[in-house]
């Protein structure tokens, strides 16, 4: 069971929930379950969200596995220079 933390902007699309418990084996499943539970998140999850798993940020690798009891943070996708 992963504890998923949402930034304030994302929480606004998820019934203002900042912390959500979700059983998911990887980022893809996590996103699918989040979309099912909070349809408002669906547009941003497609390409505007990065996932920090135990402090390491993943932007694109939706196959990244979520370790048991991992700390998950969803934040806006990063850009750089």
């Amino acid at each position: 069971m992963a504890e998923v933390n949402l930034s304030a902007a994302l929480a606004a699309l998820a019934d203002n929930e900042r912390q959500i418990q979700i059983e998911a084996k990887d980022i893809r499943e996590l996103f699918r379950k989040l979309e099912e539970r909070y349809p408002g998140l669906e547009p941003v999850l497609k390409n505007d969200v990065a996932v920090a798993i135990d402090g390491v940020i993943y932007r694109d690798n939706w196959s990244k596995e979520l370790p048991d009891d991992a700390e998950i943070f969803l934040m806006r996708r990063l850009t750089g220079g």
Partner: protein
Amino acid sequence: MSFDAKYKAQDYNSVGTRPVRPDGVDKVTGRARYGADFNMPGQLVGRVLRSPHAHARIVSIDTSGAERLKGVKAVVTAADLPDLTNGDQTLFDILDNCMARSKAFYDGHAVAAVAAVDAKTAREALKRIEVEYEVLPHVIDVDEAVKPSAPVLRDDVFTGGVEPKPQTPSNIANRSEFGHGDVDEGFAEADVIVERSFRTEQTHQGYIEPHACVASMNPDGTADMWVCTQGHFVYRQNCADLLGLDVSKLRVTSSEIGGGFGGKTHVWMEPVALALSRKAGRPVKIVMSRNEVFRASGPTSATSIDVKIGAKKDGTITAAQATLRYSCGPYEDIWGEFGAKTSFACYGLKNVKSVGYEVLVNRPKAAAYRAPSAPMAAFAVESTIDELAQKIGLDSIEFRIKNAAKEGTRSSYGPVYGPIGIGPTLEAAQNHPHMKAPLGKNQGRGMACGFWFNFGGQTCTDLNIGSDGTATLAVGTVDVGGARASLSLVAAEELGIPYENVRAVVADTASLGYNDMTDGSRGTFSSSMATISAARNAVKVLRERAALTWDIPVEDVIWEDGCAKATDKKHGNLPPLTIADIAETAGKTGGPIAGHSELVADGAGVSFATHICDVEVDPETGATKILRYTVIQDAGKAVHPDYVEGQYQGGAAQGIGWALNEEYIYGEDGRLQNPGFLDYRIPVCSDLPMIDTQILEIPNPNHPYGVRGVGETSIVPPLAAIANAVSNAAGVRMTHIPMSPPRILAALEGESEG
């Protein structure tokens, strides 16, 4: 992605050496082809007409005079670039920035463009385009723009991130907040509190090469573009989306790049060149002038930042908060959010809160500039940290070490850190001889830390073995700082062949799968991972071919020192087969030998740096001279140490210019007053000392060689390090960047009067 990117310790033969870069001779002899060096038969000259007004409604545009001029082959306006963005606001903003639609939002905003047989005709044609403007009140300053009395740029922008949702439009496009704990409680526990307001002015990335492209559209819907860019696949996607083209029918070739630093990460005039070519039926070349580069491309945000930090007498920070207002130009972006995220990322804080605002102003669309938004936030926070250390009576490095984030710290932007490198950079600074060197009269020393996220991304690479055993490496990330040399070293390492036997090229968009652009310090991190993967795939084929040649199982063949070797004694004393031996007979053992890789390089890991700076301030003139500068940063593994050092030095040099001289200066009319390198002064060699570097190598667990990105973090600490040094030298806290001579004199006079 099946590639295992986990770090494995190993000894290196090629990686870590410093051979000459393959593109070096061409660049110093003038043979290298930059964006403006490409030409096509029959090409036309494209020129862009730009708004002279900071804010104006476009009432009408009459292009008939230009169209009647002999030699003019096409004229385009927004009508020729219809909105195909399908509700994608980010893409629409790029379109509107390429060619203004109902309003011109800044001095230099494109309103029309022509293609003519020569430059003289094109210039004359621009004069014959009649634009009727209804001039509107404008706002340039970020603090003025947030006032209720400010002219509102956009009637479709309502402040996001606040409840309840506003009913009236605003120049504050969005609010974002990060942090944890209770800052009020934390400040109540503090023995000493420092609270300051800071400002930084807008700067340009200052790339030496202006934007340039040649676009050629054919009647059958195919098109080609040669362009100076940090990401030709991204430019292809942008242009295809904006012009309604099939992505695969537009082939984009990137030129050599004379600097980008974030300013060449999305399109500016490239879709206009394609639209002109579509209308004229001939290739069109557009090269921006320096004036256009300054007025209409890529500056970073101007900022206004309030910081408050409290600490106990023992040096423990009890609370920290910041409010950060970042100008975005006329389009919403996430620059204030990045400032808020990065502001306190260096520290382990019990109570922290940072709030970022995206502010719309009548300036050009802001673009990323190397670790976007982090340098300004670091300037404000690290200045306050320094002042707080002085008030408590602690050494500035000891104070930072005491409060530095470490493994297990909850970062100010949310996640808990894994293993991170700020501690080692601070300890290296503490032990560096620079910190103990004596200082003279009017001299001061400053230091500061910096943080940036780094990331990887989509990457695709081909490695082909030639018939003589040499290798060609085709990558899709543009080489902005020596990547071809670094990636050749990686291929040589994996194949076991000399560096000189590898040639790396940046392939066009028709030759490789999609690659994200070279940004986020990802070029060498991502493409080296893909190169290792491609080379290992090629080695698998080489082993198979050796096994065929020897007629033994492939499991009995290993790859070592550039040769296939049979391992089992039952195969007798087979002499090794070199890569050249295997390549020579490839046509008879199965055909060409190649390795391919497509992957998502994620897990780049966050990055930290610590800088030390000595300055001398002339109290008569207010001029500052940088006496000594040291950069300490973790590279994970320096593939080509020269180019790692180059990134460290380049970031410091740009930061020195930003800290001391560079700024956009606007007149009362909202027009940019200094759009050229004479009046917008970037540092030249005589302004800079030799910038010393210290590369730390703490392996990144998510890369086979432990590589980290190094391109951006080096620009984060300089503003703060120099401000701390100048403040220590002048005896007065500097709170406004750039610290130009007039500002330093004013601060000195204010101090003596106060």
